[in-house]
């Protein structure tokens, strides 16, 4: 296999859709250690840049990506508390450090991670920005010196990103190793502590992922499936790669081991066949959860979803109800092309007899999926691949095994009074970002997370528009006959006198999704401060 080389002209040029999401262990032991000892790297994805010679926003170069940036830089500042100065400001360590240990315990070296915040210089003061850096360096415990750590090598690996709403920066002070230090300055004692003493505590911190009140959407769905399968023996899962592969997107991880192959069924690549089998099993009284690897493949089975599932209760006058859930990722991912990027909310949402849900947060995903599995009607559950890895805060109530979110009720994510923005799935996140941007201009937007495409919460939407008098709908799907069209029609029909301006739709572009990154960005709504150049 050819070595992957994505570093050109000193910059990183990843192909669209290529995701570089290393764990901290990978950063320290696969990349930084090898770089330090001049061993070959797994992939050439990290350019060498003196990160302190530029301001953080300049580091992106001409890439428009919002992903984390990784650079090999000098180890300036790792040994001492000096500030790292850049042309327009300064990086300041927030005082916490974290030790990263090799889980196989074969390597004696240890990684050290520092968190820094960029402060911009403005006349006489410095102002904190949302730019965060995690600077990793490596150190060796010196046995003859009581195992105190000595930093080695000339490189550090820097991860630089912009803090976004909802994303937690992992090293908050509560997790900090140097708990005694409350000053924001760098604590030099880290190199003098006893190696053994700290190891247990750090090991726990190094390997615990989310704190008790944060959850990724992936974990939310997995836990919901787990709990519902545990509670009702009639619930079973069916789909491609849901079992041994642990799920194409690792959503069903661990379920095969826990429930066995009778209840977590790997199917051949035959959507029409296995969807029909799922619906037939539901006729007989079981409660299948059928996974489509993406909803693009549901088109192969759409006859069974609509004609065999949605319409049966009606045609049989209530004799045959179909308690089935069809779930899977819907809408665009990143760089997967026209055949793998369509949003099906509008198509399924138009069909009587179906319930169609589109979660956004982890709470939505958990609660709506549990409600869907318990519902006696066929439910289409539209997830989003790019949301799977996102973490959201969850309440203790959400984590309870009987937690359900009511189907057919929207959620007001952000209260406002000037304009109503209605969105679902990933676009809720974008809408919240847009609301933040609008707030700086003095516009107070109300953001509604639909949660349920069918039944549509017309009451909530109308109530909101009657308050704000303006409506904007946001969706990823194609504009013609979309979800936004139905929302606009409903508001114009029911709340016409309340509107101060025509209703507005924001939707995906009226084209099959292109592959090239720049025009793919143009094919979907984006949240940004200025209008997008064509």
């Amino acid at each position, binding site marked *: 296999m050819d070595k992957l080389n994505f570093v050109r002209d000193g910059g990183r040029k990843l192909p669209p859709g290529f995701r570089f999401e290393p764990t901290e262990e990978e950063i320290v032991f696969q990349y930084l250690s090898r770089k330090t000892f001049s061993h070959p790297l797994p992939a050439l994805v990290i350019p060498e840049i003196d990160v302190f010679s530029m301001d953080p926003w300049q580091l992106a170069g001409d890439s428009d990506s919002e992903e984390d940036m990784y650079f090999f830089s000098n180890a300036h500042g790792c040994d001492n508390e000096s500030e790292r100065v850049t042309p327009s400001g300064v990086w300041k360590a927030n005082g916490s450090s974290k030790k990263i240990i090799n889980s196989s315990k074969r390597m004696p070296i240890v990684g050290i991670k520092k968190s820094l915040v960029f402060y911009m210089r403005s006349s006489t003061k410095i102002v904190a920005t949302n730019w965060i850096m995690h600077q990793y360096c490596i150190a060796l415990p010196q046995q003859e010196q009581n195992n105190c750590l000595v930093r080695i090598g000339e490189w550090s690996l820097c991860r630089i990103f912009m803090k976004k709403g909802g994303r937690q920066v992992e090293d908050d002070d509560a997790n900090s190793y140097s708990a005694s230090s409350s000053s924001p300055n760098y604590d030099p004692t880290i190199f003098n502590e006893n190696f053994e003493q700290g190891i247990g505590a750090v090991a726990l911190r190094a390997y615990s992922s989310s704190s008790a009140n944060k959850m990724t959407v992936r974990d939310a769905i997995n836990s919901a499936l787990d709990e519902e399968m545990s509670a009702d023996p009639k619930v079973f899962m069916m789909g491609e790669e849901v079992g041994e592969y642990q799920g194409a997107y690792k959503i069903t991880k661990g379920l095969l081991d826990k429930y066995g192959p009778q209840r977590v069924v790997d199917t051949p690549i035959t959507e029409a066949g296995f969807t029909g089998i799922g619906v037939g099993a539901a006729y007989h009284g*079981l409660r299948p959860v059928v996974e489509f690897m993406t909803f693009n493949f549901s088109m192969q089975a759409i006859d069974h979803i609509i004609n065999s599932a949605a319409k049966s209760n009606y045609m049989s006058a209530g004799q045959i109800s179909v308690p089935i859930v069809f779930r899977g990722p819907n809408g665009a991912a990143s760089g997967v092309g026209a055949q793998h990027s369509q949003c099906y909310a509008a198509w399924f949402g138009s069909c009587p007899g179906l319930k169609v849900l589109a979660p956004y947060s982890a709470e939505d995903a958990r609660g709506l999926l549990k409600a869907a599995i318990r519902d006696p009607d066929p439910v289409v559950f539209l997830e989003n691949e790019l949301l799977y890895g996102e973490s959201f805060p969850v309440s203790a109530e959400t984590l309870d095994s009987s937690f359900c979110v009511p189907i057919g009720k929207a959620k007001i994510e952000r209260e406002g009074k000037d304009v109503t923005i209605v969105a679902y799935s990933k676009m809720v996140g974008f809408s919240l970002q847009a609301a933040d941007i609008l707030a700086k201009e003095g516009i107070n937007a109300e953001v509604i997370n639909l949660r349920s495409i069918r039944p549509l919460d017309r009451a909530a939407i109308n109530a909101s528009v009657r308050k704000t008098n303006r409506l904007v709908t946001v969706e990823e799907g194609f504009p013609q006959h979309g979800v936004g069209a139905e929302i606009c029609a409903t508001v114009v029909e029911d709340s016409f006198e309340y509107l101060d301006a025509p209703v507005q739709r924001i939707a995906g572009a009226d084209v099959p999704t292109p592959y090239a990154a720049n025009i793919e960005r143009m094919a979907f709504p984006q949240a940004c401060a200025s209008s997008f150049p064509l």
Partner: protein
Amino acid sequence: MAQLIRRAAALNKSLPAASFAARGLATASTSSITVETSLPFTGHNIDPPSRSVETSPQELLTFFRDMALMRRMEIAADSLYKAKLIRGFCHLYDGQEAVCVGMEAAINRKDCIITAYRDHCIFLGRGGTLLEAFAELMGRKDGCSKGKGGSMHFYKKEGGFYGGHGIVGAQVPLGCGLAFAQKYSKDESVTFAMYGDGAANQGQLFEALNMAALWDLPAILVCENNHYGMGTAEWRAAKSPAYYKRGDYVPGLKVDGMDALAVKQACKFAKEHALKNGPIILEMDTYRYHGHSMSDPGSTYRTRDEISGVRQERDPIERIRKLVLAHDLATEKELKDTEKEVRKEVDEAIAQAKESPMPDPSELFSNVYAKGLGTESFGADRKEVRTVLP
């Protein structure tokens, strides 16, 4: 000789309704008779069952009566359709009665049957009544689907009948799903997924068969080969019209579908096989006298001689009549009387069904969901016709 007096209440009795115990027969009605099927079975990857079928006078007389009832029902439906009391599609089963009746004799109500749109007689066999059938055909509220389904959407869940499906071929994966559920629940019962020679070319059938074989599902795929998929003869639609062989790794059996006893034997054999070894295909060689549906005269793609030829040589009711007479189980007159009774039963059911009212307008919005969650639903005029789903 005491004849049972037919009263209106008897219309609601389901098949097999006849009781010949009241007849003063010298032979005990459950004594065993062995009959040879007229044609041998042909097997594919399996040893076919024996041609000798165990039956009894009771069973043979029940076969006769049930098939005569079904035949009469379908002919009556023909007249009702021409009188415009039945609308839309109407696919008639006359000629194919032996498949349905022979299958019922081999199975119980825990076993499931699912079929396509030619479902009136199978519905009757699973315990449906004449009143429910005719009322549904005429779109009245006493129909089995309360008038909301129509000819193609008869269901009887408590009798193990899962419809009644309009999309050609869709019922086969659904049937394999029923079998999946039976295996999952450890029911020790099987599913018969019925389809025609036209549907036999559907891709989803092979997808479902693959999974049924992979997972050893107790599914029996029954191809009712009446040799015409709508207007297309089998040799024009299928490169290989040997439908019992199309399962490849799945064994198959070719059966004379006009012989109720052969059908019974094959279904009994298939059920034992499916419970132990997974799916099996049964091809029933049968024939329909009517066209594909009521809008098809049935003579543009086949000759009238062919139709009358089959009726003369292979008619399923005539075969049983000959058997009954040959074994002296009843006289000609008694059989003719049975046919008259059956005709009267059908006529009374139709009269009662005509009295049944059409569904209440509120039924437009009922049963959209099993649990409506109080959502709003709209009619054509959104301002006037709107309701809340319970």
